[in-house]
């Protein structure tokens, strides 16, 4: 496989973590503009743990996921009673605060004669754990997609279970769910933490793929993009967000036809698509139809 294809596929995989994170919150009925903050938390914490403290990547990734979940919990708790656009605004504010905190975060240690660590707006260079172990791009692609597939399996299992039904019930009608005895607040916090952990995992993988991160990577554009991918791909299944990412980064970016006009094409496509399918391509109806057809 050539370098270009590997690069594109890796990026699709990395972005999918973010898109899935936004998707999880969407099916629970909340629109979040802030998942990029947890992506950043994962990236920075994972990077610091491997580059400065020399922790192996699996351990650093686990720690990063925990931190991502914690951060999401800290944002989710005060905003628990907020709904709709209010919640969206609050997540936006929280995410921008996180980004500014990344800009102020300086933590450098001298390792092997070089200063390593986050340096505020100058960024964080030298996240070379993957590179130093001679892991080739193909291998890393396999790692990213392997983890993504595990996440997808998780999602599919949850969808079929009572938990999945509960989450969708909360998403569609929280009052009704509450009257059935479901503790809406507890579930929402759980979902927020899970989504934060998922985004953080994507962040660690992103940081080690790029070897260089800076606060600007984690701005609103990233967050709104992930929300858009989740919605466009479809809210009926976890494959939906992946479809959204593939459509933009894969199909449109890959094809030379739209060179320089990609946003114009993609933007128009999305707006028109949403007119006919406001819950995405693979929305609940489509998924039911597919299931009925193939079972």
């Amino acid at each position, binding site marked *: 496989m050539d*370098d*270009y294809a590997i*690069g*594109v596929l890796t*990026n699709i995989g*990395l*972005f999918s973590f973010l898109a899935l994170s936004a998707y999880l919150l969407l099916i629970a009925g909340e629109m979040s503009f802030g998942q990029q903050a947890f992506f950043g938390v994962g990236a920075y914490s994972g990077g610091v743990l491997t580059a400065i*403290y*020399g922790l192996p990547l699996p351990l650093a990734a686990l720690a990063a996921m925990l931190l991502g979940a914690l951060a999401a919990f800290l944002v989710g708790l005060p905003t628990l009673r907020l709904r709709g656009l209010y919640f969206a605004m609050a997540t936006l504010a929280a995410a921008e605060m996180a980004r500014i905190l990344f800009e102020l975060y300086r933590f450098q240690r001298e*390792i*092997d004669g*070089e200063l390593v660590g986050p340096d505020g*707006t*100058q*960024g964080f*260079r030298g996240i*070379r754990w993957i*590179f*130093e172990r*001679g892991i080739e791009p193909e291998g890393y692609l396999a790692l990213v997609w392997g983890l993504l597939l595990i996440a997808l399996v998780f999602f599919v299992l949850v969808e079929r279970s009572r938990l999945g039904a509960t989450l969708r019930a909360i998403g569609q009608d929280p009052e009704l769910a509450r009257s059935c005895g479901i503790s809406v607040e507890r579930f929402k916090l759980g979902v927020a933490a899970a989504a934060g952990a998922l985004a953080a995992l994507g962040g660690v993988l*992103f940081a080690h793929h*790029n*070897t*260089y991160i*800076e606060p*600007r*990577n984690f*701005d609103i*554009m*990233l967050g709104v*993009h992930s929300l858009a991918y989740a919605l466009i791909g479809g809210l009926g299944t976890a494959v939906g967000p992946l479809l959204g990412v593939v459509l*933009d*980064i894969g199909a449109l*970016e*890959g094809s030379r036809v739209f*060179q*320089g006009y*990609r946003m114009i094409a993609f933007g128009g496509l999305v707006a028109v698509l949403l007119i006919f399918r406001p819950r995405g391509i693979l929305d609940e109806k489509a998924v039911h139809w597919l299931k009925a057809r193939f079972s």
Partner: protein
Amino acid sequence: MAKSALFLICCLYSGFAFSQRAGATLQCTATKTDFIYDCVIKLSKGGEPLSGAQITVGADMPSMPMAHNVKPVKAKPGAKPGEYQAKLDLDMLGEWAVKLRLAGPVKDQLILLYHFDEKGARPVTRAGKPLRK
């Protein structure tokens, strides 16, 4: 005690791969086609020009990560020792993080931040300081 042990292990790990990092500078001029640049890469190690390396050049935009997929190109050896040429095909003007993957005598990965405009590329300075390699 544990901290210094960890530190030693880190040093050993890094020392294993290479003790001196390669450095590079980029010089790009715009071509007649929009967003395509002719670039000359000057590679050095320990102050000496480094020739015979195989460089794969890629790029990503810090303000929109993972969204641009620039086709990685293999650099060709240039006129002088330590110099390499590559044609970079970006799809936008602005700040790019150019990724140089080195194979050959030295294995390394360098990230250079450059601002690309209609004339060429200039290194990015933040807060008045040029960014280190």
